[in-house]
């Protein structure tokens, strides 16, 4: 490819359109994680919740013939997984990273098992028709950005709507204040008479539902099929964009678009051929994630109580002499892990 072709609008406009489409599942998961992390919950299990949402959404869309019911079902599956994560980490005080890793194994395994038992025996793999594009009147005729941003499927517009909604919810509502307090100063929230546990459970349910919706968007609205491993690390990339976007809905959305663009660029370069072999270009989003999480970490700023269970209801027990039972040290280690 010549450099001049890279500069032409004909190259960038379709790329932007693909980038927006690819960014959408990530956007849902990222916005959900913004709420969860602001409440103090680091959800390493997003990848699994997305896979569960992708399977549940696909199965439901095939079963009912209605893609929107599928998307709803995906969100519901994610919500239930989020509540399980919440039960363990909030109510039982389990470490969030361990729980997230185990939840990933469970959810990825369950999605795979359920898919193979439900659809594996039939020779012809069921496929869904992709959602039709909906060109928004007037907006889609705007120069350059019109088609890429406003000539998409309706699920993408739902994503656009969620960006200001999540921002309003977190920054401007009473519930958002509670969420921020649950992640920043749970003791204060508790002394104000609000249950930290309930707020955190609500936040993780929201985060899980959006992760499930993200997964279902991928399987139902974009690919039209469920494949094991189709999430392909998007759940972890969602964690990175949350950090990189500074836990703010708008910036996280911008970071998602960056990833969508990188992925779209990588796919396009594979087609046209470059000096870098196509097989290695696949790694570009993962490399970008490493870069982004490093830059994001340099700025710091995780919510203060991230990965810290709030245990007031069960009176803290004094540290045991035996090192195997040392909660204080262990807690501190995990705490430092996340807040360097």
């Amino acid at each position, binding site marked *: 490819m010549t450099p001049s072709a890279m500069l032409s609008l004909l190259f960038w406009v379709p790329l932007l359109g693909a980038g927006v489409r690819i960014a959408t599942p990530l956007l849902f998961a990222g916005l959900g994680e913004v709420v969860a992390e602001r409440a103090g919950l680091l959800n390493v299990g997003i990848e699994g919740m997305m896979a569960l949402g992708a399977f549940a959404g696909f199965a439901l869309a095939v079963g009912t013939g209605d893609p929107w019911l599928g998307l709803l079902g995906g969100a519901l599956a994610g919500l239930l997984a989020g509540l399980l994560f919440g039960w363990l980490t909030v109510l039982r005080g389990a470490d969030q990273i361990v729980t997230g890793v185990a939840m990933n194994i469970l959810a990825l395994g369950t999605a795979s098992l359920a898919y193979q038992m439900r659809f594996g025996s039939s020779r012809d793999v069921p496929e869904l028709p992709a959602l039709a594009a909906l060109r928004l009147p007037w907006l889609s005729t705007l120069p350059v950005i019109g088609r890429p941003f406003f000539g998409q499927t309706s699920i993408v517009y739902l994503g656009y709507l969620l960006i200001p909604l999540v921002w309003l919810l977190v920054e401007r509502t009473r519930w958002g204040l509670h969420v921020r307090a649950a992640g920043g100063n749970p003791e204060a929230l508790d002394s104000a008479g609000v249950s930290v546990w309930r707020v955190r459970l609500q936040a993780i349910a929201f985060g899980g539902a959006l992760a499930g919706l993200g997964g279902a968007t991928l399987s139902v609205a974009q690919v039209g099929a469920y494949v094991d491993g189709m999430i392909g690390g998007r759940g972890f990339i969602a964690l990175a964009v949350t950090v990189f976007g500074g836990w703010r809905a708008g910036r996280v959305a911008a970071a998602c678009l960056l990833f969508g663009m990188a992925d779209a660029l990588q796919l396009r370069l594979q087609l046209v051929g470059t000096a870098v*072999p196509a097989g290695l270009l696949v790694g570009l989003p993962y490399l970008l994630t490493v870069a982004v999480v490093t830059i994001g970490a340099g700025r710091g700023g995780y919510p203060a109580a991230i990965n810290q269970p709030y245990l007031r209801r069960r009176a803290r027990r004094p540290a045991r002499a035996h090192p195997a039972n040392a909660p204080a040290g262990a807690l501190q280690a995990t705490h430092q892990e996340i807040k360097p």
Partner: protein
Amino acid sequence: MSLLAGRWWDVATGAGLLAAALAATALLLALLGANPLLAYGDILAGAFGSVSGLTEDLVYATPVILTSLSVILAFTCGLWNIGADGQLYLGAIAAVGVGFNGLGLPAPLLLPAMAAAALLAGALWAAIPALLRLRFGASEVIVTIMGNFLAVTLATYLIGGPWASGITPATRPVVAAGFLPVLVPGTRLNAGFVIALAAAVLLSFLLRRTVFGYRVRTIGQNADAARYAGMPVGRVMFAAFALAGALAGLAGFCEVAGVFHNLPNGLSPGYGYTGIVVALLARLGPGRAVTIACGLAALNVGSGSMQRSLGIPVSLAAILEATLILLVLAVRMPQRRAPVAPG
């Protein structure tokens, strides 16, 4: 509590949790329209019913032991190594690369050279997240997971491109001098299993009986206290993480030299993640990890034969493992959060 807080209490709790996990998974199977008793019977028969089943258990256990040791070393130092899978791949890539013997090494030197390359590759791959974590504060959880994806990308590229065999979805085979000896003739059980056991003994010794191990444990329990005591916290953490990567890299070497004799596509069905499960269930004890790794390996091997006879996918094993871990988390909390005692 002191009366109950013994080894037998642990065993009883473990058995109870295992039963609960089996029951929960049985419920899922029943929901999906399969007979759980038949499935469990098949798993047992597949895992323990024959010599080939029993040796396959140990073949599967070999990389799981090594990745769990990798996870244990990092966790004991307060770091999360979710990237053992990627480090295993890098080790396998290095072992295969040296094993083609383009350098023309004499036969007795080839295996040690392959092992050294695998150790080094795993250590270097782990050094990247360690460096980013210690220097910039980047979460090693995310970076090691990305490392897994990148390692698979690299392996897939090599298998499809420069090192392609042209016949199977695998690289060309290594030369015969790069094969580990088989322990039981007619099976795949090889010296890699002995290497894994030796690594467990060495790690146990390292953690319990050396200055480095003492520092690792202290930092894992309280990095601030360790710093206050004058320990070079950053350097120990870096060394521990690189060594953890080397252990996982060794798993890659064992797979290449002991089992496959090349680098196949999909080399690891998630050994790194199973290693995490083992490390947690073993409460970070290398000795316990060997036992538990063998148990989970039997579960996976048995599930494989169940898949062949009953058509129930092998992911059942992953579900069982994860359910068990989640039950342990639900029951042990909050007094025993991240267990830190090596043993």
